[in-house]
C-alpha cells in the first residue's frame, strides 16, 4: 500500500514580474492511500487546480509552507519527471498540444522512461496493451496515431488523458475536471476507464466542480474546498448535499466569510 499526504500546504502563484506571489492555498491537509478514491469539490477559483499542479511540481506554483509526502517521504525537492516516475499522474484540465509528436510515440516514451534502458517495452506488447485500453475508452487507432492533442476537441483531450492514465498505470492519479465539457455518453466512457483502474494498487484524487461525475465514479471520501482550504470532508452523501444546497448554502452553514466567484 502507498500513501499520498498533503500537510499544511501553502502555495503561491509566481507571476513573471513579481517577487512575492499571491497566496492561493492557505494550509491544505489531505491524506489518502492506494485503494481509495477521494473527490475534491469546490467553487471556481478556489485553488483546486493549484493543489493538483503543486503536487505534480509545476514550477509556476511555489510551495511556501508545508509538505507533500509520498509513502512518507517528501517529494518537494523532486523535479516533475521524477515525481511522475515515483508514481504520480496528473490528468490536466488544459493538456498541452504538441504537433509532430504522435500519441503513440509519446506514450511509449512515457512507459519506457519507467523501465530500464536495456528493458524497453517490446512493440508488440505495447500495441497489445494500447489496443486493450483504447477498447475500454471506445477509442480508435486513428486517434493514437494523431499528433499529441493537436486539433483534439475538448472531449477527445479528456479521453486521451485517461488513455495515458491506463497505459502508464500510476499509483496515484489526480484528475483535474476530467468531466468538464463532456456529454453524458463521454462521461460514462471516461468513468469506465477510471473505474477499470480501481484496485488495491491505485488511488485517485478526483477534482470536480459538479457532483454528476461522482454518480459514475463513487468516491470513498469527499472534500470541499473553499478559498484555499478544505472546509469540510465526508462520504459520498456530502456531494449529494452540495448538489442540493449549492456551495453558498454550505458556506453559510459553516459560517465562512468567503466570496464565491460564481455568485452574482
Amino acid at each position, binding site marked *: 500500500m502507498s500513501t499520498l499526504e498533503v500537510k499544511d500546504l501553502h502555495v503561491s502563484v509566481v507571476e513573471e514580474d513579481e517577487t512575492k506571489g499571491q497566496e492561493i492555498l492557505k494550509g491544505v491537509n489531505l491524506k489518502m492511500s492506494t485503494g481509495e478514491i477521494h473527490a475534491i469539490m469546490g467553487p471556481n477559483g478556489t485553488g483546486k487546480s493549484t493543489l493538483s499542479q503543486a503536487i*505534480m*511540481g*509545476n*514550477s509556476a506554483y511555489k510551495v511556501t509552507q508545508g509538505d507533500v509526502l509520498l509513502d512518507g517521504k517528501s517529494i518537494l525537492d523532486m*523535479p*516533475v*519527471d521524477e515525481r*511522475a*516516475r515515483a508514481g504520480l*499522474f*496528473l490528468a*490536466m484540465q488544459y*493538456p*498541452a*498540444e*504538441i*504537433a*509532430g*509528436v504522435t500519441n503513440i*510515440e*509519446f506514450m511509449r*516514451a*512515457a512507459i519506457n*522512461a*519507467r523501465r530500464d534502458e536495456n528493458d524497453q517495452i517490446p512493440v508488440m506488447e505495447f500495441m497489445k496493451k494500447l489496443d486493450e485500453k483504447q477498447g475500454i475508452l471506445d477509442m480508435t487507432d486513428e486517434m493514437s496515431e494523431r*499528433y*499529441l492533442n493537436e486539433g483534439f476537441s475538448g472531449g477527445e483531450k479528456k479521453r486521451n488523458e485517461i488513455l*495515458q492514465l491506463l497505459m*502508464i498505470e500510476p499509483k496515484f492519479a489526480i484528475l483535474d475536471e476530467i468531466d468538464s465539457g463532456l456529454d453524458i455518453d463521454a462521461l460514462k466512457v471516461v468513468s469506465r476507464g477510471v473505474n477499470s483502474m480501481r484496485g488495491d494498487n491505485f488511488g485517485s484524487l478526483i477534482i470536480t466542480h459538479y457532483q454528476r461525475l461522482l454518480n459514475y465514479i463513487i468516491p470513498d471520501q469527499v472534500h470541499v474546498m473553499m478559498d484555499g482550504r478544505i472546509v469540510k470532508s465526508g462520504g459520498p452523501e456530502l456531494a449529494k448535499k452540495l448538489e442540493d444546497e449549492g456551495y453558498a448554502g454550505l458556506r453559510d452553514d459553516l459560517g465562512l466569510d468567503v466570496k464565491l466567484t460564481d455568485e452574482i
Partner: protein
Amino acid sequence: MRSSIKDDFMDDTIAFSKNHEEPLWFQKMREEALNHATELQLPIFEKISYRGWRLDHPKAPFAEANTDNSFDLPETNNLLVQNGDQTLVNKLDPKLSEQGVIFTDIWTALKDYPELVQKYFLATALKPAENKLVALNLALMNGGAFLYVPKNVKVDQSIQSIYLQDNSQQKDYVHHVLVVADQGSEVTYLENFLSQGDQADNIANIVVEVVAAANSRVHFSALDQFGQHVSTYINRHGYVGDNARLDWAIGLMNDSQVVGDFGTDLRGEGGHSEAKVVAITTGEQVSGIDTKITNYGQHTIGHILQHGVILQSSSLTFNGVGHIVKGARGSDAQQESRVLMLSRTARGDANPILLIDENDVTAGHAASVGRVNEEQMYYLMSRGIDQETAQRLVIRGFLSSVITEIPEKEVRVRLTDMIERKLINGQQK
C-alpha cells in the same frame, strides 16, 4: 607582390581539365572564371560576417582524393557515390536509362552528353559571374554530378547521391551538381553531403543548379553533414519554368560553419516553389542561411519555411527573402522563419524580408526567435519523461513541419535519426 588565385592555380586548373579529358569549351570556361574571379565580390549574407573563413582562399583544390571511405549504402536502384573526382558507386535502373534518364559523374556527362551539359551548366539557373565563390566553383571544380530527366519522363523511384568530402587531408572540396528536369518530366532527388575524417581545416564550395523546365515537377531533398573543421559555402539555385514546380527540403545537420544560399527564380508563368529548410547548430558553430524566392512570372507562388534549433554556443541566422518583381501580377510570396534557442549562450536571428514591386499580389511573413515551450516540457515531464528526452520530443515536433514534407519515408527516417543524434551531441554539457 602577393600572388593571385589566378597565378596560383591557372596551370593546375588547365592540367586538371586536360587530365579529365574535358571538352575545350569547358576548359575555357574554367580559365575565364579564374581570370575574373578576383574582380567579383563575395556574396552578401545579411547580418553574417564570414570573411574571416577565407572561403575565397583555396589551398589545395587538386590534391589526390583519399580512398579510405565509409558510408551506409541506401536501398535504392539509382545511386551515385562520389569522393571528389572518384566515383565509387554509380547505378541506374535500366528502365530509366532506356527512357533516356542520365545520372552520372560530371566528367562522363561532359564526354557523353556535351551539348546537354553546355546548354545548362551555369547557363540557366546561375551564371559564372554570379559572385566570386560561384566563379571559383567553376574554375576549381574537383567533383560533380549530372542528372537529366528527358521530356515527359516521370521517374517514380527515388534517385539518390552521396557526396563524400575528404577531410582527412588538406584538400579543398569544390563540388558542382546539375539537375535538369526537362519539360513535363517528374523526378525526386536526394543528395547527402558527408565529411570523411576530421583532420584538416578545409574549404567546401558547393554549387547545385536545378532546372525545372515548363510543366515539370521536381522534388529536391538534401541532407548536409559537413564535419567540424570545414568552412562551407553551399549555393543551391533553382530555375522554374511555366507551370513547373520545384520543392526543396533541405536539412542542415552540419558541424561545420556554413553559409547557405538557397535561391529559386520563378521565371515562367504559374511556377510554384516550396522551400523548406531545417537546421540544427551545436558547439561554437556559426551558420547563416539565406533562402530567397523571386517571383518573375505572373501567377507564381513562392513559399519559404525555415525552422532552426540552436544549442550550446552556436549561432544561426535565417534570412528569408520573398521578392515579387514588377509585372509578376497575381503572385504570392509567403515565408515563415522560426528559431529556437536552447541555451543562454546560443544566438539566433530570423529576418523576414519582403520586396514587393507589384501591386496585384499577396505576400506575408512570420518570424520568431524563441525558447522551448515550457508548457509542452511540463506536460511531457509530468508523464515521467526526463528533461532531455522531453526537449528532443518538443524540438522534433517543432521541426516536423519540414520533415513531414519529405516524400520518401526512408529519407524522413534518416533525417529524424540525424536530428536525434545531433541533438544528443548538442545536449552534452
